[in-house]
C-alpha cells in the first residue's frame, strides 16, 4: 500500500511539473505573439478572445506572474482549458472530449496487443536462442527504425485505394453519425484496422527485443538450472520460471516507454486523418491554435500518468517482493 501511495505522490508531482511547464512555455516567446496572431486572424477574434490570449501569453501588464499562475490553476480545476481559436468559440475541453475516445480506443487496444504479442515472441526468441527465431531480430530492428508515419504512408499506398477494403482516411463512413449502432461500429472498426496494423508492426519489435534479452539473462540463473534438474517439463520451466521473472523489467519498461508509444501513435493518426488527438494536434499546430495545443498536451500527459499508475499496480500484483515491503 505504501508503494502505491508513493507512486501516486510521484505522479501528482509529475502532473504538477507538466502543468507548470505548460504555463511557462507561452511566456518564453520573444516579442508580442498576440499581435502576430491578431494579424493572422484578422477580424476573426472578438475582444474576449484577445483578452484571454493576453492572459495566456502572460503579457497582461496589470498582473504579476504569481497571480497569473494562481489564475491558471483556478481555470484548470474548473476544467476550463480556454477557447480554441481555430474553432472559435468552442471551448478546448469540448473539442478534446470529442477526439479523446478515438485515441484511447486505438492506442489502448493496439498497445496492449503489441505488448502481449511482442512479449510472447520475445520469450520464444530468448528461450530458443540460436534457432530460426534469431533470424527475426534484424528484421525487427529494421522495422523499429522505420518511422511510424512512413509505415502508415506505405500502408495507405499499398493496401488502401478507391476500391480496396481498407479506407485510407477518416474514422468512419462519411454519412454516419457516431452512435453505438450496427452501422457505425463496423465502419469504425474497418477504418481503424489499417492504423492499428501500422502501430502494431512498428511497436511490437521493441517488446520482442527487450523480452528476448531479459530471457537470455534469466535463462542462466541458478533456479532455472534447478528447475531443469528437477525434471520439470521444458514448457513449465520456460513459462513459469524464466518468463515470469523476465517479465518484471518488461512491465516497468512498458510504463516508461508509454510516452514514446503515444508520441508515435499521434503521428499514425495524422497520416490516416484519424479523428483522434494526434490529428487534432496536427491541425492545432497548423492553425497556431495555442490553447488547443496546450490542452492536448495536458490531456495526453494525464492519460500517460494514469496508464503508468495502472502498470505500477500490475507490477505490484506480479512481483511479490514489492508487496512484502509494504
Amino acid at each position, binding site marked *: 500500500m505504501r508503494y502505491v501511495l508513493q507512486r501516486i505522490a*510521484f*505522479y501528482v*508531482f*509529475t502532473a504538477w*511539473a*507538466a502543468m507548470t*511547464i505548460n504555463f511557462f*512555455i507561452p511566456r518564453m*516567446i520573444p*516579442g508580442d*505573439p498576440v499581435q502576430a496572431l491578431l494579424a493572422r486572424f484578422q477580424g476573426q477574434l472578438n475582444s474576449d478572445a484577445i483578452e484571454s490570449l493576453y492572459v495566456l501569453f502572460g503579457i497582461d501588464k496589470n498582473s504579476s506572474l504569481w497571480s497569473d499562475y494562481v489564475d491558471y490553476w483556478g481555470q484548470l480545476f474548473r476544467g476550463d482549458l480556454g477557447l480554441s481559436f481555430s474553432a472559435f468559440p468552442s471551448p478546448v475541453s469540448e473539442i478534446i472530449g470529442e477526439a479523446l475516445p478515438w485515441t484511447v480506443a486505438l492506442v489502448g487496444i493496439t498497445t496492449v496487443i503489441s505488448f502481449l504479442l511482442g512479449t510472447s515472441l520475445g520469450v520464444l526468441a530468448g528461450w530458443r*536462442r*540460436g*534457432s530460426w527465431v*534469431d533470424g527475426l*531480430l534484424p528484421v525487427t*530492428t*529494421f522495422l*523499429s*527504425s*522505420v*518511422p511510424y*508515419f*512512413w509505415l502508415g*504512408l*506505405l500502408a*495507405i*499506398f499499398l493496401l488502401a485505394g478507391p476500391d480496396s477494403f481498407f479506407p485510407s482516411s477518416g474514422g468512419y463512413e462519411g454519412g454516419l453519425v457516431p452512435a453505438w449502432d450496427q452501422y457505425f461500429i463496423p465502419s469504425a472498426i474497418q477504418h481503424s484496422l489499417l492504423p492499428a496494423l501500422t502501430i502494431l508492426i512498428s511497436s511490437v519489435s521493441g517488446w520482442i527485443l527487450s523480452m528476448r*534479452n531479459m530471457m*537470455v*539473462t534469466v*535463462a*542462466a*540463473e*541458478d*533456479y*532455472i*538450472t*534447478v*528447475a*531443469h534438474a528437477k525434471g520439470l517439463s521444458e514448457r513449465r520451466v520456460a513459462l513459469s520460471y524464466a518468463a515470469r521473472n523476465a517479465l518484471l523489467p518488461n512491465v516497468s519498461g512498458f510504463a*516508461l516507454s508509454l*510516452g*514514446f508509444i*503515444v*508520441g*508515435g501513435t*499521434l*503521428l499514425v493518426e495524422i*497520416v490516416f486523418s484519424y479523428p483522434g488527438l494526434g490529428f487534432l*494536434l496536427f491541425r492545432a*499546430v497548423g492553425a497556431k491554435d*495555442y490553447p488547443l495545443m*496546450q490542452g*492536448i*498536451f495536458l490531456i*495526453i*500527459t494525464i492519460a500517460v*500518468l494514469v496508464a*503508468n499508475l495502472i502498470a505500477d499496480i500490475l507490477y505490484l500484483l506480479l512481483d511479490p517482493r514489492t508487496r512484502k515491503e509494504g
Partner: protein
Amino acid sequence: MTIPTSSIDQVIPGQGAMAQPEEAKPVKAKRQRFRFVTNAKAATGLVILGVYLLFAVIGPWIAPYDPGARSSQLVAPPSPDHWLGTTHLGQDVLSQLLVGTRGVMVVGLTAGVAATILSVIVGVTAGYLGGGWDDALSALSNVFLVIPALPLIIIVASTFQNAGSTIVALTIGLTSWAWGARVLRAQTLSLRRRDYVEASRASGETTCRIIFFEIMPNLTAIIASGFVGTVIFAVATEITLAFIGIGGISNWNWGEILFWAQSQQALAQGAWWWFVPAGLAIAFLGTALSLINFGIDEFVSPRLRSAGKTKIKTASGHTVRMRVGFTPVLANSAEPHTHARPMPINLNGATPVQRTEEVNP
C-alpha cells in the same frame, strides 16, 4: 591507481562472470583494442553510418540539381535524368535527399551531444553524491521520463515563430536526456563502492578527479550507448517535426520531403519514388545506429550475443542444442534414465554435480 580491466564485465550485476570463456585470454593486447569493431553488428552499423556521414559532407556538392529548382517534368517517375523522379514542381528527389542529409545528421548529432552531456551531469552527480542530490535529480529525470516527449517538443518548437534547426536540436536535447541519466545513475551507484574508488578516496583524491578519472572511464560504454540511442530518437523526432510542418523550411530535411509528398497527394498519384527513398534513408540510418548499440550491448554483456551454431551432432547420431546455463545430458548411456535412479558417472561426458544447499529457486 589502475582501473581493473574486468570492471566492464560487471556492468550488469551478476553477468559476465561466467559469460566469456573464449575472451578470458586475449591473444594480443593490441587486438583487444579493436575488439568492438570485430563485432559483426557494430561493424555493419559503423560502415553504414560512415556512408551517411560522407553524404552529409559531400551531399550538396554531388547533388545533380539544385533541390529547389523547378523543371517541366512534373511528378515524373525515375529516369536517367532524374534517378529518383521528380516532385509536383519538377524538383529532383535525389538532390533533395542528398542535400537534406547534412541537416538531418547535424541536428541528430547536436541533440545527441546535448542530451548526453546533460545525462552525464545529472546521472553521475546523482549516483556519486547520493543523499538529497540523488533524490532531487532522480525525481527530475523521472518526471522527464514520464512526460510524453513528442507532444512537448511539438508544442515548444511550434511556440517559436520561426524555429530553426538549432532550436529544434536543443529542444530535442533538453527533453531526451532522462533515460541516459537514469542508467548512468544506477551504474555510478554500483561503481562508487568499488575497492578502487574507495582506495582513491582514502588516498585523498578530489571528488572531481575521482569522477573524471576513476568513474567516467568505466561508464564509457554506457555513455556511448546512451549517445547512440539519443541520436536515434533525435533523428526520428526532427524528421517527425518537419513532417508535420514545424522547423526549418529550407534545409530539405527528409521529413519535409515526406511532408510535401503527403500534402501533394503523392499517395493518390502512385508516386512511390517521392516518399519511399526518404523513408528508406531514415530506416537505414536508424538500423545502423541500432546495430551499433547492439554491438555495444553485446560488448558489455557477451551473453546477449546470438549464439552461432547451437545444434551439435554427437557421435551416436543424437542432436543436442547447446544452451547458456546448462550442460546437456546425453541419453546415450546403456541404462535407461529415470528420475529415480542415480545418474551413472560418465567419464567422457558431463559430470553430475551434487547440490546440497540452495535447492529451492
